[in-house]
């Protein structure tokens, strides 16, 4: 079983409570089951009683995890309950117990694949489905690129593997990744720029795991925009909400805050701490398709923590987070690209 590769996490997380305050889902549903401790203990139970892998309540609990990895980042030993959860999902799928909603999402992802590349230049901008849904992020990127007079290509059209992987379909994820890698290669681009931190994490980590070497250097927009050496007007006072993928999966990636420093932003601390995930479930990638009600609760949880929800400017690195904060709250949310475009 895939979970056997995570014995450390099973043994160390199953009775440990030290990260429970960071369970985003646990903090909005108030449930004990939605904590790393209980998920790990449940999975340990499956190792003792394999028939429990078919338990629908257990399966649903695995699939509604926020996968923020705030627990792993917080843990002094960084035990990987996140990876364990994905391994358990993979076991569920491979044993044929995937619920219909999981199968349907995976089928939709596979069906959505239709890669289109437009434009020309050494830079290839990947506009994933969440970035496209905002309608404003790619526009902001375009404005900056025009100002910098840098020609670029765009690629749209499908899942590059991340969503399939976290749903428990690693083989299909790898196949999708290979196809995308070919699209990138065919574009002859030297730099691949992404706005969505989930895509960034997939390209940096998952592809390596799949044994895929990309022909272009991968950069998050916050990293790439800094290379343009643009002069920005002062952005002023704002709150920056960290991305799960950039902070917890990529060792507190420094580029977003460096870009905000270039923008002379005065960053105020949001809420009461910098440990909780304030992303509406970004780490789970397709959580809105699994249970949008939880995403709404996560958004409201963030809104309740704003100093002045009507006035505060919240800047996010993730188009996903912008979509759901905008959909479910009255908060004023901008992505890094939008903020940068407004201040050139």
């Amino acid at each position, binding site marked *: 079983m895939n979970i056997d590769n995570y014995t450390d996490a099973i*043994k*160390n*997380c*199953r*009775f*440990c*409570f*030290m*990260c*429970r*305050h*960071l369970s985003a889902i*646990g903090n909005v549903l*108030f*449930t*004990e*089951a939605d*904590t790393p401790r*209980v998920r790990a*203990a*449940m999975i*340990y*139970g499956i190792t*003792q*009683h394999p028939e429990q892998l078919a*338990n629908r*309540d*257990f399966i*649903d*609990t695995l699939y509604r995890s926020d996968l923020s990895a705030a627990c792993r980042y917080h*843990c*002094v*030993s960084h*035990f990987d309950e996140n990876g364990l959860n994905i391994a358990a999902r993979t076991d569920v799928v491979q044993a044929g117990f995937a619920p219909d909603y999981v199968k349907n999402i995976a089928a939709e992802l596979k069906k959505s694949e239709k890669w289109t590349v437009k434009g020309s230049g050494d830079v290839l901008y990947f506009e994933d489905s969440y970035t496209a849904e905002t309608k404003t992020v790619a526009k902001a990127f375009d404005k900056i690129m025009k100002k910098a007079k840098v020609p670029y290509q765009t690629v749209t059209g499908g899942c590059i593997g991340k969503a399939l992987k976290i749903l428990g379909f690693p083989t299909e994820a790898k196949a999708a990744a290979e196809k995308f890698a070919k699209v990138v290669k065919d574009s002859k681009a030297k730099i691949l720029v992404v706005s969505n931190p989930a895509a960034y994490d997939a390209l940096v980590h998952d592809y390596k795991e799949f044994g895929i070497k990309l022909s272009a250097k991968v950069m998050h927009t916050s990293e790439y925009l800094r290379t343009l050496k643009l002069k920005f007007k002062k952005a002023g006072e704002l709150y920056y909400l960290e991305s799960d993928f950039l902070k917890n999966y990529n060792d507190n990636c420094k580029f977003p805050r460096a870009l905000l420093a270039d923008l002379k932003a005065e960053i105020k601390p949001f809420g*009461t*701490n910098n440990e909780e995930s304030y992303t509406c479930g970004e780490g789970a990638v397709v959580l809105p398709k699994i249970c949008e009600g939880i995403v709404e609760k996560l958004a409201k949880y963030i809104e309740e923590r704003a100093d002045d929800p009507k006035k505060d400017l919240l800047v996010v690195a993730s188009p996903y987070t912008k979509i759901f904060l905008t959909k479910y709250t009255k908060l004023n949310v901008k992505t890094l690209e939008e903020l940068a475009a407004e201040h050139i």
Partner: protein
Amino acid sequence: MLVSKDSYMYEMIRTELTDIVGDDNVCTRDADKFGHSIDYYWIPEMWHDRGMETPKPDFIIHPGSAEEIAKVVKVANHYHIPVVPWGGGSGSQGGALPVYGGIIIDMKRMNKFKGIDREALTVTCQTGMIARHLEWRCNKEGYSTMHLPASIACATIGGFLAHRGTGVLSTKYGKIEDMVMSLEVVTPTGEIIRTLPVPRHASGPDLTMLFLGSEGTLGIITEVTLKVHPQPEAREFRAYIFKDFHTAMSAGAELMRSRLQPCAVRLYDEEETIHHVRKVFGMELDKGAYLVFGFDGRKDIVDCQMRYAREIMEKKFKGKDLGSKGGELWWENKYKFFYPPFMFHMPQAFGTLDTVATFSNIEKVYWAMKKVVNENFPQARFIGHFSHWYEWGCMLYARFIFEEEYVPKDPREAAALYNRVWDLAIRAAIANGGVINEHHGVGLKLGRLMKELYGPAMPVLEGIKKQLDPNNIMNPGKLGFKGV
């Protein structure tokens, strides 16, 4: 389990509960029941480790108000269903386990922060708030509860109140019971009451103290007003190595008798210094006993107190100074001891035999417990540190550890061995002036020893329980009270 899921009565009762708290707040999923069947107590952990079934509740309720809890309690009285309050579930004594099934009232939805009174320096909140969240909220406004236990990340404020918890700064700021101004409580018969608004008065016996430490057997604490403190200008630590535990204990006791006001004092015996302090700090330490203490407050006062404390440590007791670095290391790593793999864990068998006694008795308690564990269980290790210090004595955080090869594979035999250690060690503590627990509570683990501790006073507690909870629905079988 009192209500079989196959019985239509199960659905009848679920309908009543749903009517009170809403469909979303009555959980009967297997995953939720499982989550509430194991706390931080070794026995349910071991039971699960061995692939055994753990006792589960029939219903898990997430109430949003004291009024909803009162209604749930009335339903439970009507049908004589056990009710067990659950906070963070991180208790080590089995106090929140639904051993007779019934209703778990999970308090975490009652997590409202109600504000800080800047004149009185108090904070009011609902008791389902996770302590770390409350502390963060207070910090944002420049204050601290100063209640900073290792379980701050996982336990709710209500959990600490229910078993009289303690944080690392207890020596200056007190245990949770010293921090409480007043409480709101839902009684076992469903009345909502408030204790007096201030903790110092001459208006009769103190009801606040009656409910603190009652572990959900006398009611459910739903709201609390606690003291808060401004964040100190300075907080500094210093550590020493003493040639042996006795010298270190004498130095620590002298520090307390001097009536200086350390915020924290901690002393590790030779065994724990060698095996755990070194491991967690990742530094070499001389053989001996490690003692650390700190002061906080105005910088000039901290400096002055530190100067006098150093005189005690260095001139009188010849401690080897590890400097402020040796002390700061402890402060920075104070919670690291409790993360895996630094914390003991399954398949080891381990337990914290915490007790408290006066300075006249504490060493006797330590040696008596150590002797009884060593003599009766030579395969076990006994270590100890002294982590909460008072003007009159201190707390012994003794632990026993059996490595995997010494723990029976059969879960029943393992439980019997485990209980035997507790029986002998705690009886040794009581015989030498100790008590059965200092800050983890009694729960299921130590209930059987309550009669021995209280003697003829136990019927007083039982009488109170009977009066408040005539149907014995509130957390039956805990705190030494009768089961179902």
